[in-house]
């Protein structure tokens, strides 16, 4: 099983012929992902690592049966790209692009709901189910098949954590980079809900950070709905108020979104918290 990404994803890459596109198509193919199409307007007929390029998503879908899109286009074209994919019937979207105006993200997240699609991101590294598929830009070599589900608002921090799990022999079912923006399509709650249902997943790791109340809501959700053990790490315990810490979403605004509040909420929900990112593996081993 695994969640959101597995052998059933037929992946189309929007922004396929750019530097990032070419590189990550190759990386995804190496991981075993079924990359079937690329889209760059005006470049139909070309190929990238054997993957055919189309002018429009619809043409790519019609020709290859793609059901998933990886969005790598620049921020100012991202909304259009997501709308195009949704209208062409794509049901799983992974939006890597960062710096998308959040009003754009709001619109496409709600339009995604209208189209019954799953949107992961924006401003995320994507998703990887070891042994099955990687849709995104996560480094392939850090993963190992297993039963820990990981959902995270941060990129490198997740790699760090996943890598430490793998080093200790703890494999992962699926790792989801949810994205560091204030508006994201798939939240901790969506991920928890999917992991709870997934037979392959035995425990869940959440990697949170300052800003917003997604962790607090996840904690409430865990209390009522999640039977599997949940572990968490929260970044930004020492971040000052009012400063944007790298991610657009990582900001303590008007006293809301502190790491303390998130840590307390998780503790109340029985979630075990790690002090250092690399501690998670030890917590799970216990």
């Amino acid at each position, binding site marked *: 099983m695994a969640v959101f990404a597995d052998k059933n994803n037929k992946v189309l890459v929007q922004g396929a012929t750019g530097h990032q596109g070419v590189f990550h198509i190759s990386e995804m193919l190496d991981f075993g992902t079924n990359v079937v199409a690329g889209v760059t307007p005006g470049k139909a007929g070309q190929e990238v690592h054997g993957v055919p390029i189309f002018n429009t998503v619809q043409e790519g879908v019609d020709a290859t049966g793609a059901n998933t899109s990886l969005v790598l286009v620049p921020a100012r074209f991202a909304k259009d790209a997501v709308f195009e994919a949704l209208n062409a019937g794509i049901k799983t979207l992974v939006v890597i692009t960062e710096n998308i105006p*959040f009003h754009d993200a*709001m619109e496409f997240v*709600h339009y995604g709901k209208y189209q019954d699609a799953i949107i992961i991101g924006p401003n995320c590294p994507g998703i990887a189910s070891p042994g099955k598929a990687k849709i995104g830009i996560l480094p392939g070599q850090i993963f190992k098949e297993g039963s820990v589900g990981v959902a995270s608002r941060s*990129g490198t921090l997740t790699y760090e954590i996943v890598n430490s799990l793998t080093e200790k022999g703890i494999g992962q079912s699926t790792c989801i980079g949810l994205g560091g923006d204030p508006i994201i399509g798939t939240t901790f709650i969506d991920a928890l809900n999917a992991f709870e249902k997934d037979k392959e997943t035995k425990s869940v790791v959440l990697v949170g950070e300052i800003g917003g109340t997604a962790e607090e809501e996840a904690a409430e959700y865990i209390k009522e709905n999640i039977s599997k053990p949940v572990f968490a790490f929260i970044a930004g315990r020492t971040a000052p108020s009012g400063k944007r810490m*790298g991610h657009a979403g990582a900001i303590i605004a008007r006293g809301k979104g502190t790491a303390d509040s998130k840590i307390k909420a998780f503790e109340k929900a029985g979630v075990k918290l790690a002090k250092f990112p690399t501690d998670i593996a030890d917590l799970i081993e216990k």
Partner: protein
Amino acid sequence: MKLFEYRGKELLVKYEIAVPNGKLVKTEKDFSTLNFPLVLKAQVPIGGRGKAGGIKTVKNLKDAKENLSNILGMDIRGYKVGKVLAEEMADIKKELYLSITLDRSKRMPLIMASASGGMDIESVPDEEIFKEWVNPLIGIQPFNIRFITSKLKLDKEQSKEFSKVLSNLYKLFREYDCELVEINPLIVRGDGGIMALDSKVNINDDAMYRHQDIEPELVELTPLEQDAKEKGITFVQLGGNIGVIANGAGLTMATLDALTHFKGDGGVFLDLGGTDDPEKVKQAFELMKKAKPKVIFLNLFGGITKCDTVAKGVKEVITKEGIDCPVITRIKGCNETQAKEILKDAGLITGVTLQDAAQKSSDLAR
């Protein structure tokens, strides 16, 4: 980007929301077109300026000149006042609160209004704040406006005026890609008209390219932060003395947290992001040097970015330009062994684990 009050008000006027007659004042001459009494207001991108002495009521020109010279140049919580707005006093019958902001959980704009305006909204009891969410697929609708308006105990004419204000304010919020628009207080005048006495307008940085009519304010950032922004480097100045360079915002934050755990004190948050461009690594180190930290802590996780590529960049900077503080490194991930060799060559101290390196950095900075 947070706009100064006076520029927020220019936008309000563009969206047909009334504001007091006023202008920026620098010299005596500037008062000639205004009618006393006036309010002088320091233009800073933060709240609480009233308490800091940044707002004064003046009854005549003499008064005005004196207070203006006091306010200009005043330091309000780190912001030097360079601009003062003078506005004619309004005839206040009632003070309301109105804002539109982003509800991250619902992923929708949130309208908040209260009949208790004029004070900090955080101090208004929850039951006196009325909330309504706007679905971005359909935008603001009459029923949204009706709900908010019906709660404010306004008479019919005022309700009509307020409805227009709310409708126009939402337009501004959407069309200018705002994170926040707040009017506090929004007053009902003696003659029944509705007027904005203050304005907070905050535009999403990522959308600034769509709003070329808005000149950027430079006051929010420190000079080094501004410099970093222009170079496309994520750089935040904090209070402490340890400079942290890491790749990825979450990892950088976690590194700062680890320092704190060992009683260290982060002074700079510098996120290299996904780069392995030696030029960018160089710029990052140069910026860091300018911030004069006591210790630099370089924490790298190599994923798509190879550790050794970054290490080469670091080595080049350090051997060519020198560095006058200790650099502690902790390297993990893709090609970490090669990277460690390179950095050792460059004379840097390598920590084995995150904890180890954080402890070393904290100890050295003390």
